[in-house]
């Protein structure tokens, strides 16, 4: 498209200044200025205070739990999310639409509700927890409980990311692979999996990012013992309740920087994917 054509089109549609103005003003007031407060606070406290608060033993234990549990849960969701997405895209069966609708439940169900529901199930008085207790396994009020909650929260991210990619997969390469004598399983691992790998990575990153910052569904089932089962967002709240704004801001700073790194990574994956498709 030539710039002359574009230029004329600009002149025709009204409301550019107004809509962009509202967008930038609102974005700044609600998101950018408030977010910058976290960094300003940490910066004004000085490096020493920041480092002491951000990397105290208790904070590091909390990051390890939040990010570790998020990584395990995202990995589990990659396996089962791929299976669910595959079944939804490839097969037609009774109840398929129902299954598809249910996948979004974690998006729609308030996290606090998910939290108390999972706790009711996995506590040793609950349906699942009771059965596990007989086998000597405890999940609720342990780090494993955090993983369970994050598996619940993260599933739709992986399924919804994979579905369109699986649907767009051309049957030609699969046919070629089968014609050349590969088994169905070989075709899956050598042809299909490499093609959907970027989408799988995106799904993992989305589920991981959401899980690392998750609060509502986790605190009821986690146990919340400092150094053991205390997630990073809870530590922020604890610091705030003690009016330790600097400590809270420092931990928030670390979490934000990691989230931004994941966001950059996601953009990179998208960029890489679009280049591969061309």
């Amino acid at each position: 498209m030539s710039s002359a054509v574009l230029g004329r089109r600009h002149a025709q549609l009204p409301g550019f200044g107004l809509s962009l103005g509202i967008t930038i003003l609102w974005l700044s007031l609600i998101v950018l200025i408030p977010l910058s407060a976290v960094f300003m606070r940490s910066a004004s406290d000085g490096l020493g205070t920041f480092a002491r608060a951000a990397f105290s033993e208790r904070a590091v234990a909390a990051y390890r739990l939040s990010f570790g549990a998020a990584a395990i849960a995202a990995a589990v969701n990659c396996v089962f999310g791929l299976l669910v997405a595959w079944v939804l895209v490839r097969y037609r069966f009774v109840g398929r639409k129902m299954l598809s609708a249910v996948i979004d439940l974690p998006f729609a169900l308030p996290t606090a509700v998910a939290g108390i529901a999972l706790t009711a199930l996995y506590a040793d008085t609950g349906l699942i927890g009771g059965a596990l207790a007989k086998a000597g396994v405890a999940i609720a009020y342990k780090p494993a409980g955090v993983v369970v909650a994050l598996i619940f929260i993260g599933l739709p991210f992986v399924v919804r990311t994979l579905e369109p990619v699986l649907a767009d997969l051309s049957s030609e390469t699969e046919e070629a692979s089968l014609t050349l004598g590969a088994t169905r399983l070989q075709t899956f691992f050598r042809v299909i999996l490499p093609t959907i790998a970027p989408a799988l990575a995106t799904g993992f990153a989305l589920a991981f990012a959401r899980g690392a910052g998750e609060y509502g569904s986790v605190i009821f089932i986690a146990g919340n013992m400092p150094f053991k089962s205390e997630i990073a967002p809870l530590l922020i709240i604890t610091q705030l309740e003690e009016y330790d704004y600097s400590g809270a801001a420092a931990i928030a700073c670390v979490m934000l920087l990691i989230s931004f790194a994941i966001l950059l990574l996601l953009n990179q994956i998208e960029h890489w994917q679009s280049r591969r498709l061309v």
Partner: protein
Amino acid sequence: MAAGKLREPTAVKAVLIGVAVAYVAFMLLLPLGAVLTEAFRRGWALWAAAISAPDSRAAIKLTFIVAAISVPLNTVFGIAAAWAISKFDFRGKTALTTLIDLPFSVSPVVSGLVFVLLFGAAGWFGPWLDANGIRIIFALPGLVLATMFVTFPFVARQLIPLMTLQGRAEEEAALTLGASGFQTFWRVTLPNIRFGLLYGVLLCNARAMGEFGAVSVVSGHIRGETNTMPLQVEALYNDYDFVAAFALASLLTLLALVTLGLKSALEWRHRDELAARH
């Protein structure tokens, strides 16, 4: 297509579908069932009593007020942002889109924290607000701000891909035929995006009413005053008043189910118009 070869044997297919359905039932439906069973464990009378307790009623009312303020504001913003980004070409468009999505990668707790750092007792504007008798934190404005931050991207990210796909030809035609800018938006653009808009508003509202982490930080947890429904669920749960906690949670579950139902209905009926989501 050599369809026969591309399909797994029926047995394999049945096993895959079975495992996927069982996994989703176990991970997602079981918690849903747990909420409803716990809520009605002691019968309808206690459920109704828990719902109509003064603090519960206040929490329900507050939840609706917060959503009634934040959802329309974010809808107006979302339309403005989508108009600017999808109908015009300008530098920094990709960056702007990324910034709009930013709240999705921020932990809910951090989303609340930013407003405490700004408006809390020891925050930037705290002393000034205090001197002038304005309450933001531990009051309605704080709840609205935190909710708006968290639900900020919902409408915009639904509309941007949709309106980009629709292009600007129809609007240009309307303007050429003598319509005003407002008429063009009202008669041409809005009918084209109405289902996408509805979809975005629906998800935005579900999140606004169910938000927990962000509002938890700014609310102060004053029962009957600053507790929204999810916060009241937590308060009741921590009192070991499980019947009441799950009763209130069952209302939020109903909200989630209605949201999912409407969302699925929109997806089935207006697939084409929603297809542009990413």
